[in-house]
């Protein structure tokens, strides 16, 4: 690795960088996950308690207090919470990465100024730790589903496949936001508001079908809409993924990742000057 040659910005460089730094990514992701709970008495168990507590609260508030019913679904204690929880998991994965990205480079200025560090993997590590928490939440979700409805669908194995385009696109957004965040400190504030808005403008608390027909096409422009709806289909309704749209989503995801990476690599030369 010659630090003086211009960093590659093409899509192939992404693969090369990920492969070359696979050990580093693994070690640092592990550290990131464990480090979050380091020093707490319960340790890693917190990563389980968090989703369990959240799910318990949703069940109580929506099923007991509001007595909400998911449009088109039979009333069943806890079913609303589970439907909600799927959307929360998907949105949470994206929101966590998006919120942390603008500060990623700034909070690791050591890696910018003092060593020649493959900065692009910082986004990968953030994503990796978010994936870990998503996986834990998924286990909690499947457990709750089994206890409350006594059914699990084999189509749930396609969930990672549904999530894949989102993961790839999130990485692209993360690179873009990380690079922008170095130069424009306002990005962090904007993103915090946007991710909250996104929670309500995605079909997390309601299905797309619950909207008036006039609004439905607009909601479908939100990339999270497709992912959340499909996730519910494979996890909770036992439906197979819609393959053509998955293919399109994958291509869009790859394009976003390639653009984010290109932008990041172009901007990184100036990081050390600004920090």
């Amino acid at each position, binding site marked *: 690795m010659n630090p*003086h040659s211009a960093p590659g910005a093409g899509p192939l460089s992404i693969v090369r960088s990920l492969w070359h730094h696979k050990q*580093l990514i693994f*070690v640092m992701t592990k550290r990131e996950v464990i480090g979050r709970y380091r020093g707490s008495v319960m340790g890693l168990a917190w990563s389980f308690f968090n989703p369990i507590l959240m799910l318990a609260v949703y069940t109580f508030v929506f099923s007991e207090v509001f007595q909400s019913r998911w449009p088109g679904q039979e009333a069943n204690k806890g079913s609303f919470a589970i439907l909600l929880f799927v959307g929360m998991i998907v949105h949470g994965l994206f929101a966590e990465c998006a919120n942390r990205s603008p500060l990623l480079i700034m909070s690791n200025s050591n890696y910018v100024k*003092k060593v020649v560090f493959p900065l692009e993997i910082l986004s990968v590590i953030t994503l990796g730790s978010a994936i870990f928490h998503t996986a834990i939440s998924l286990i909690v979700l499947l457990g709750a589903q089994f206890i409350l409805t006594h059914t699990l669908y084999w189509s749930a194995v396609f969930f990672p496949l549904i999530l894949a385009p989102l993961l790839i696109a999130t990485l692209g957004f993360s690179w873009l936001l990380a690079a922008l965040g170095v130069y424009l400190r306002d990005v962090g504030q904007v993103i915090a508001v946007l991710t909250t808005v996104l929670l309500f403008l995605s079909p997390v608390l309601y299905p797309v079908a619950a909207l008036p027909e006039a609004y439905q096409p607009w909601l479908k422009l939100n990339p999270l809409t497709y992912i959340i709806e499909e996730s519910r289909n494979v996890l909770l309704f036992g439906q197979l993924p819609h393959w053509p749209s998955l293919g399109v989503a994958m291509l869009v995801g790859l394009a976003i990742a390639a653009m984010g990476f290109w932008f990041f690599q172009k901007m990184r030369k100036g990081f*050390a*000057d600004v920090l």
Partner: protein
Amino acid sequence: MSSEDSVISVRDISKCFYTYDKPSDRLKHSIMPRLQRRLGAPVSSYGREFWALRNIDFEVMRGETVGIVGRNGSGKSTLLQIICGTLMPTAGNVETRGRVAALLELGSGFNPEFTGRENVYLNASVLGLTREEVDQRFDAIAGFADIGDFIEQPVKAYSSGMIMRLAFAVQAQIDPAILIVDEALSVGDARFQAKCFERLRQLKNNGTSILLVTHSSEQVVTHCNRAILLDQSRLAMIGPSRAVINRYLDILFGRDKPAQENAALQDGSALSAGGSNHTRDEDGPTLDFLTDAYSRRSGYNAHEYRWGDGAASLTDFHLCAGGHVFPPQIAPGEEVVLHLALRFNRTVINPILGLTLKTKEGVTVYGTNSYLLECSSADALGDAGSQARACLKFVNRLASGDYFISIGIASREGEAIVPHDRRYDSIHFVVSATPQLLGLIDLAATMDFDQVSNNAQA
């Protein structure tokens, strides 16, 4: 293409930093000039420029140790960061061949929350080592750092010395092609520093090129083949360490005008052409007051560093010890007599003649001057065109080894010292073996023993 053996080529590097009054100026600066250039409009600037480096150009060869010196803010760290690749130059380019390991400031790249062991693995993999390679070297690294059980503690619990030890241990054990050390070693205790320099010497013998930034001139003279002096963002001098260090010390302590250096001294010789060329005194040897006989004498060090404004010149010297003239070796305890020829080209008020003795490593053993010695006969000297001779005597109490004498004429101008002719390290002499002592100087210690009989206590 430069020679095969060059591992670092720095070509005409400049680095400009911008400072902005408002954060929005930074944004405008990154967009507007490009836009204006494309539209053909005049380019406006939103930031203030600060040039940290200007037109730096040099090469470092394989196995060479190069010291970089300069005052605070002269651009040393910026240069190192550019060579490491953490900063991009504004103009020019850098090429490095092989793995670059760098110790930039303290604890470079350590994560304070992780343990020492984890940081070693992290740091080494950043440098491109695989887990297996680190496994192989871990014991060597931990052994070198020698921080005991702290290796399993988070780095935030470390003392600054421990951080430096661990950081150096990692960098030094991975056999880099280029090792860059930025002042970090000064944190270590003397014993660890010695260990570091021993390791640096091994690396150097194995072909590692080392760039060393330090404020210790002794370290540069002792460990570096060459040195680079940066002053006000420019490369002021590059060459043999001793010469560069002398120049550096002048910049630090003197008010110098290096451009005037020897040219003024040459002019001066014409002024006093009327004076007698050779003098022979009953109480002194023959000295030449007109030409620079100084540099033809035996014992003269051609690598001397000479500078001054030329108002006075040191034209000749005569060294005598224990009755031997220009002795090849000076025995311990002998009286050393040094005669000097001085010529005043312009009027100098209250001239001061200084003498300094240094070891070959650059350690000052002794120094004094006519002002400190309250030598009132010097005050009367200094009329333009006049000549004078000085006789310095001291008893050789130095331990065996090589020494250099520096001589200088200066005068005071208020608080400041104005150097007229300084000839640093201009005379070399050797002190013959002194088997009775260690160290630098003979303090003439004595020892006495008395047998005490056991009965005496009863």
